C-alpha cells in the first residue's frame, strides 16, 4: 500500500478578528483559525458543520469595499480579512396557536404586518450565508404564497444575518419558519395512514405479537430476524409483503 503524502504545512496569513491581528494558517476555516489563535469558543460555535446558525460572520477583505458574509465554520480565511462573528441578533417573534389557524397568507400577514414595509433592496439575500433568496421569499410572503416561502426558505438556519442587514427592520427568519410550519400543517392533507396506524396501536392490534416477541430467546429472535421479508430497494409505494400476519 502506498504511504499517503506528508501533510503540507500551511503558510500563515494575517486576519483581523474584531480589529485584532492574528497570524493563522491559510487553509483553515475562520472557526479553526481562531482556535489556532488561542480561542476556546463559547458563543459563536455550534454544530461546526454549517447547519445550526451559531456562527454567522460578517467580514471585509482588503481588495473590496463590499461587506461579505459567511459561516465561521465553513468559510476559509482570506489574507487581511476583518471580521466579527454575530453571536446573536435581536428578533421580534409573534405568538400563535397553530391548531387554531387554517394556513392562509392572511394569517401570516396578521402576525407580521411589517412584511409590507419590505422595500425590495435585496440586502437580506446578499447577507444570507446559505445563499437563500430571502428577498424572493419575502415577496412570496407578501403575496400570501406560503408554499413558495416554505420552499425558498427551507435551508434557513435562523442565524439572523438577514435581519441585521434589513433597512425595513424585518425579521425574515421568523416570518419564514411560520410560513413553513403553516404550509407543512395545512398545505397538504394530514397523513391518513399515520392516523389509522395510531388508532390500530391504541386498539391493541400489535400488543400480542409484540409481547410474544419480547418473551422470545435470542436464538429464536435471530431466526425471525433472518427470515424477515425485505421490501426491495426500488419497490413501488404500493408494494405489499407476502406474510401479512403482522402488518
Amino acid at each position, binding site marked *: 500500500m502506498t504511504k*499517503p503524502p506528508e501533510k503540507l504545512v500551511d503558510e500563515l496569513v494575517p486576519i483581523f478578528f474584531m480589529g485584532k491581528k492574528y497570524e493563522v494558517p491559510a487553509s483553515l476555516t475562520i472557526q479553526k483559525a481562531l482556535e489556532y489563535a488561542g480561542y476556546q469558543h463559547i458563543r459563536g460555535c455550534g454544530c*461546526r458543520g*454549517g447547519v445550526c446558525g451559531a456562527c454567522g460572520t460578517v467580514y471585509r477583505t482588503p481588495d473590496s469595499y463590499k461587506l461579505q458574509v459567511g459561516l465561521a465554520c465553513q468559510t476559509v480565511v482570506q489574507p487581511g480579512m476583518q471580521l466579527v462573528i454575530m453571536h446573536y441578533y435581536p428578533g421580534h417573534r409573534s405568538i400563535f396557536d397553530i391548531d387554531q389557524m387554517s394556513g392562509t397568507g392572511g394569517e401570516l400577514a396578521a402576525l407580521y404586518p411589517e412584511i409590507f414595509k419590505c422595500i425590495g433592496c435585496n440586502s437580506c439575500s446578499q447577507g444570507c450565508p446559505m445563499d437563500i433568496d430571502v428577498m424572493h421569499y419575502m415577496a412570496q410572503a407578501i403575496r400570501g404564497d406560503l408554499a413558495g416561502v416554505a420552499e425558498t426558505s427551507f435551508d434557513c438556519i435562523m442565524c439572523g444575518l438577514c435581519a441585521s442587514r434589513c433597512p425595513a427592520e424585518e425579521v425574515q427568519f421568523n416570518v419564514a419558519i411560520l410560513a*413553513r410550519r403553516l404550509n407543512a400543517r395545512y398545505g397538504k392533507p394530514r397523513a391518513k*395512514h399515520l392516523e389509522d396506524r395510531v388508532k390500530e396501536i391504541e386498539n391493541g392490534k400489535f400488543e400480542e405479537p409484540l409481547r410474544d416477541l419480547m418473551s422470545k430467546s435470542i436464538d429464536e429472535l435471530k431466526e425471525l430476524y433472518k427470515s424477515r421479508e425485505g421490501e426491495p430497494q426500488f419497490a413501488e409505494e404500493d408494494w405489499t409483503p407476502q406474510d401479512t400476519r403482522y402488518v
Partner: protein
Amino acid sequence: MSYPESLKKLIEKVESTRAARVERKRKDIEFPALKLEEREPILKNFHPDFIENTRRKIKVGPSKGYAISNEMVDLLEARSRVNPDLVNLTEPDYETDVLVIGAGGAGTAAAILAAENGAKVLIATKLRHGDANTMMAEGGIQAADKVGKDSPYYHYLDVLGGGHFLNDPELVYTMVQNAPDALRWLEGLGTSFSKFEDGKMKTMHGGGTCRKRMHYAADITGAEIMKTIRDETRNHLDMITVIEFCPAVELALDSEGRCAGAVLYNLETAEYHFVKAKAVIIATGGSGRLHIQKFMTTNHYGATADGIVMAYRTGVPISFLHTVQYHPTGVVFPEQAEGILITEKFRGAGANVLNIHGEQFVYEREPRDVEAACIIRECSPEGRGNGVPTPTGKYGVWLDSPMIDLLRGEGTVRKEFPGKHILFRRFGIDISTEPMLIHPTLHYQNGGLDINSKCETIVPGLYAAGEVSGGVHGENRLMGNSLLDVIVFGRIAGIHAAEYVRNHGEIGEPNLDHVRRYNEEVEAAGIKVERIAPMLLPDYSNPEVREKQLTKDYFGTLS
C-alpha cells in the same frame, strides 16, 4: 479549490466502473450482504470497540467494575467542578416545577409536554436552544406507519437485530409503539416532512430496515424537527423559560434522596446558580467531543457527556456504554469539512461504497457497526490496504453519489441533498458528478443512564431521555431511531415528570451530600488526578498558546 490532481486520477477509476454498477442496481442486483455469522469476526477484528487497551473498569460509583472507554472513565473518575460547601442552596436563584437540562430534541419535546401537562418548566442549556446533535441529524426518523406493509412488530425486530439482540425489550416496545404518534405530533406542529400530494409520507430504507420506514425532510430532517419544536416552545413563554449558556454541573437531592434541582454555571459571568425544582429531566445528549480513540466526530460542539457525569454521581447506573457508534460515512477530505456527517440516506438512495480501485467491497446498507468495520478493514494496512490516501495524510473510501442522479434522474442529488450539495460546492466539488471521500467517524453514544419506559431513573424525581440514556438501542443504534428516540422519550419524560410534580408536592431541603461522598470515593479509590467533570466544552485552542496561559489566581472572572 477542488479535488487535487492525485485524487482526480483516482476518481477516473470510480467512473470506469460506474455504468456497470448503476446497471446492476437498476436490476436490484446488490453486492452480497454479510450473513449474521459473518458479521462477528469482522466486528471483532476491525470495529474500534474491540481494540485492546482502549477500555478500563470504572473504579467508583454505581457501575463500579464496568469496563468502558478510557475517555468516559476519565470523566467519571474526576472531581466536581464546585466545592459543595461553598454553594448556597438555601436561597435558590430560580424555582420551577420541572427543570430540563439540555435543549436539544429530547429536552425541547420534554419541555413542551411537561408544560402541556400543567408544569412550569425551566430549560437550562450550555449553548443556545437547539444547539444539539438533533439539529445535525440528517437522514430521517423511523416509524412503522405504512398500514398493510409494515408494523411495530417488524420495527421491533429491526431494532433488535441492529442492537445485537441485547436491547431492553420494554424500551424498544415503547419506542416502536409510540413512533407513529410521535410522527403525528410533529406533523401537527408543522414539520415539513417530504410528502406525496395526498398527504402520504415519503419513506425510504436505512441500514438494517426490512421495510421503508424512514421519514425525512430532504437531508436536514433533524434541523427541520429541531427548528419546529424550538419555535413551538416560543409560543409558550408563560410556561417555558429558557436559560442559555448556563450548563448544569451538579444535581441536588433532598434529605429523602429525591432530586431537588441543579447547580448551573453561567459561562459568561462565572457564577454558580441554584435552581430548585420538583423534578429534573436530563437531556444532555451524547459525547462525541470526547474524541474516543482520537476519532473525528460528527457531533455538536457541546456533546461532552455532562448528564452522564452528574447523574452517575447521584447513583444512577449506566449501561451499553461499552459500545460506541462510528458512523460509516464522515467526510475525511477536504479538511475543512472533516468529521461532518454524510447521511446514510445517500446509500439508501443507491450510492455504492468503493475502494481505491473503484470496486465495491461491502453492501452499502449493512447495520452501521458492520458497515464501519468493513470500511476500516478496507482502509487499514492490517486489513486489505485498499484505502484512498488523502492529501491530509489519512485514508478514506469513495461514496459514489453521482450514481443517484443516474438512477433517479438528473438533479436528484441537488434536490434531495441540498445541505451536502451546498457544503461541497463551497469547496469546489459537485457531488452530483464527483464522489465523496469518507471514513467512519465517532457518531453516537449507544448507551447511557439506565431508565425505565417512563424515563424514570432510580433517583425519584430524576428522569432522562434521548442520547444520554441507554438500553433502547442495545449495542448499536439503527439510522432514524435517534430522532425517534428523542421525540418519543422526550415526550414521555415530560408527561411523567409533570405527573410526578402533581403527585409528590413539595421537596425537602436540597443538599449536595452525594457530591461530597463521590469526591471521597474517588479519593479512597486512590485516583490521584486533578481532573474535574463535567468538561462542558472541548478545548481545541492551540497548545502553544495554552502554554502561555499562566494565570493561577483569579481577579474577578479574568482567567
